[in-house]
């Protein structure tokens, strides 16, 4: 079961609210789609600079695996206040711990409409359907 303390998007990002900020990352499912468990398949991650303002669904970064470039989209509107500097040098963290050490950005959100997002059970259901 995935963590129940956060919300999930159809494009496999997770959002964890922390006061007036939110952490955003990508799920284990997204990571596995990119690298199928091979840590070395993740080669590059481009994340935004702090202070960048994001709209809902705006692309805030890109991640490259050996065979694909994929966008990272923000589920919330707000301002980037912190970027996980560890990730760009240690992409393997996304494989080993996508939920805690593998967070990507922290944003100070201006909207907190999470109704459209899925909870862990709903995300599990969506992922199980994608796998069949």
């Amino acid at each position: 079961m995935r963590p129940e303390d956060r919300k999930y998007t159809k494009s496999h990002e997770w959002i964890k609210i922390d006061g007036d900020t939110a952490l955003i990352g990508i799920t284990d499912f997204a990571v596995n789609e990119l690298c199928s468990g091979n840590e070395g398949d993740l080669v590059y991650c481009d994340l935004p600079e702090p202070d960048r303002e994001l709209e809902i669904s705006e692309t805030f970064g890109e991640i490259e695996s050996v065979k694909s470039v994929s966008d990272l989209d923000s589920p919330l509107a707000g301002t980037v206040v912190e970027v996980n500097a560890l990730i760009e040098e240690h992409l393997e963290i996304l494989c080993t711990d996508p939920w805690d050490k593998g967070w990507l950005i922290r944003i100070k959100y201006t909207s907190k409409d999470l109704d459209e997002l899925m909870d862990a059970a709903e995300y599990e259901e969506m992922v199980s359907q994608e796998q069949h």
Partner: protein
Amino acid sequence: MTDRWRLLQHFEAEPGFNMAVDEHLLGGGQFPTLRFYTWKPDALSLGYFQRWTDVPAAEKAGVVVRRLTGGGAIHHAEELTFSFTAPVTHPLYRGPVRDSYERVHDAIAAVLLEFGVHAELRGDQVVRSDVANTGMCFHKSTDLDLVWDGGKGLGSAQRRTGGRVLHHGSIKIGRTDLEPGISTLRSHASELTPENLAKGLRARFPELLGMEMEPDELTPGELARAEARAEHFRSSSFLHRR
């Protein structure tokens, strides 16, 4: 239900235009699209994240563009380029990225056999075409790449955005000075042309990939949009973005 695909072909098309058409197709479309094309003039395409300085051949190539897809640089000469664009939920692309490569590469290998080429996924083989520090796609292989005669002969890369995927591939027909040591089809099929190769792929893909292809042309609006956007892919700002 029939899996209907739009088929586009642009032989000897301008390099920036080629990238602009694929960008447009990645943005959406009623049907998934398979596109075959070649380049005039010959050009080198950088992978989306590559630094110009990491690809020495970029200084030697007359024309350079940057792709939206990842991976290494490709010299588009003596080859056939293909692009698939489809929703990521399409059966060809659903699931892990690796699986989608296997599906497409297995189909292409089956077609290449008809040209006398025994292509296979590289797997754990050591190939002679791997060369360090050139930044060229064909000089860096992965286990999913198609190889024959001990070298890489098909280069490919994907871009996934907005719930859609763009899958680029280059099948080498002949040798070029910028990519020494790679495998080509012409050593098995001396008269092979990009047009003939595209014809062979078109003929077998419906059976191999379960698709029905509808030959089509870009609409006047699509054509105008791609022509207007072509400059972006060869612009200094995009070429030197890293």
